[in-house]
């Protein structure tokens, strides 16, 4: 009586792959979800559940070190992503849609260098240079961090802007030139509005990359210049309280929000 179930033969199926994929997604998300859940823990421990509470969010919110680190992180990220996006937009305009010219490979190599060189190497290189400038000038402000962040954010801002430029239609600009628009006017009224989503996407990536940076910041910062990630790194070396969970969760939510915005901006309109 037992009728054998017959599964249709699927050419896209491979044995065990779906199971392994689901396991991978679980392994990927269980730690993150646990971290988020324990940020609402009422007890001191990051391992024993003591009931729901927002205590650690309040604690982090009122911690002056966290406040200062947050403000510093945001200042650096805003300045760095602003600078990086501006220079990257210019560089994208200078390297696309004008045919090949001498030295373009050098420009590409320089722009993409932060993606190729391991961060720890850039970090010690900046430490060497900035340490001697600090000694020579006596200035120990945030400018070092802003310059360093601006530089490594450039490729992240450059790539989406360039992608947008390459996909753009030249006819509108030619039309505006035909109608006697000056090059600057054509750029401001035609090219820039069309390019805007790419620029916004690039700025957002640069912002997230700057906000997340640990290694370069750790080596470049002067005493008492913790950003949120370096503050967390310092905390993780000591006894961990759910405060770190709370900060992490807040950063995670921010990342997901920005990421969603990024997707909406770069989505192709069909």
């Amino acid at each position, binding site marked *: 009586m037992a009728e054998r179930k017959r599964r249709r*033969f699927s*050419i*896209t199926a*491979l*044995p065990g*792959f*779906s199971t*392994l*994929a*689901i396991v*991978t*997604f679980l*392994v*990927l*998300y269980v*730690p993150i979800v*646990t*971290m988020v859940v324990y940020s609402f823990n009422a007890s001191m421990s990051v*391992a024993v559940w003591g009931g729901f509470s927002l205590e650690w969010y309040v604690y982090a919110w009122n911690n002056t070190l966290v406040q200062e680190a947050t403000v510093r992180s945001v200042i650096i990220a805003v300045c760095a992503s602003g*600078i990086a996006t*501006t*220079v990257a937009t*210019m*560089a994208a*305009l*200078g*390297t696309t849609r004008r*045919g090949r*010219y001498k030295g373009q490979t050098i*420009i590409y190599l*320089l*722009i993409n*260098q932060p993606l190729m*060189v*391991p*961060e*720890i*190497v*850039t970090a010690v*290189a*900046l430490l*060497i*240079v900035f340490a001697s400038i600090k000694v020579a000038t006596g200035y120990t402000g945030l400018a070092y961090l802003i*310059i*360093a962040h*601006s*530089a490594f954010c*450039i490729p992240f801002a450059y790539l989406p802007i360039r992608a947008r430029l390459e996909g753009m239609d030249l006819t509108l600009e030619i039309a505006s030139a035909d109608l006697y628009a000056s090059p600057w006017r054509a750029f401001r009224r035609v090219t820039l509005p069309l390019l805007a989503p790419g620029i916004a996407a690039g700025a957002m990536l640069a912002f997230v990359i700057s906000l*997340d940076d*640990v290694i370069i910041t750790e*080596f470049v910062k002067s005493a008492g210049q913790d950003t949120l990630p370096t503050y967390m790194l310092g905390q*993780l*070396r000591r006894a961990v309280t759910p405060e*770190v969970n709370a900060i*992490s969760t807040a*950063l*995670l939510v921010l*990342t*997901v929000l920005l*990421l969603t915005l990024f997707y909406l901006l770069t989505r192709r309109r069909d």
Partner: protein
Amino acid sequence: MSMDMDRKRARDGWLLSAPALVLLILAASGPLLIVVIYAFLTPGEYSGIVWDFSLKAWFQVLFERDIFDQTVSFADAHLTIFWRSVRLSLVTTLLTFVFGFPTAWFIATRPPNQRAMWLFLITIPFWTNLLIRTFAIMEVIRLDGILNNALMGIGLLSEPLRIMYTDTAVLIGMTYVYLPLMVLPLFAAIDRLDFRLVEAGYDLYATRWQVLRRIILPIIKPGIIAGSILVFVPSLGAYVTPRLLGGGKKMMIGNFIELQFGAGRNWPLGSALSLILLLIVGIALIFYVRASTRSDANG
């Protein structure tokens, strides 16, 4: 006339790129050149350097001189760190492939309306701070973490596993944090795969294994190479993950470089080690470019 146009185009291109290039030379390429110089200088007494040419840093990378009888021997500790870095990075690459390939395949074979959702689930960890993800996995594998609690809770273990501060912990951590870097390029390759070729294979009575080995893997090879490079390169230069999960003892090259600029007070040695790391990364990238142009030529 056209000559002038060409020249103007190149000039404008350079002018527009100039601000970005100045910034990059100031805070990326320039400092890197100084590292090259520092690797050939003498360490200062407390930190920094003395401007005397010396090859001692390069000698110290591989050898050490006994302080009593001046005999030269291999610096075992250094070799151990190099070997650990390379070995852990290779195993990480392999593990991310073992988990990443089925995951990428799964995403690419979902119905189109679900695909974006699964892909987004991979992208979230990809953009989440590395430090946060390392912290998250650390909380799982700690002595009193949820892994041990769960395993002891269901009676599989009577004593908690001591994973933290071992090579295994670093391996688990790196596989966890770099997995999305393997999945994304693999997905891109599988997404472009022409499934009519797979169907033709089955029509010709190929087994699943034969189709996988003879059709699928050769076609998605560029994706495999890209994913492997994307995982191997940051693994080799990893700093945060081995530092938090390996503790002070299980160092990788990145941590060893930092040590030279901190407590080790040997900036030239740190610079030489940075250059060696850069060299290995450069070799990996050249291998990648050659492998991908070759498969372009074949495909």
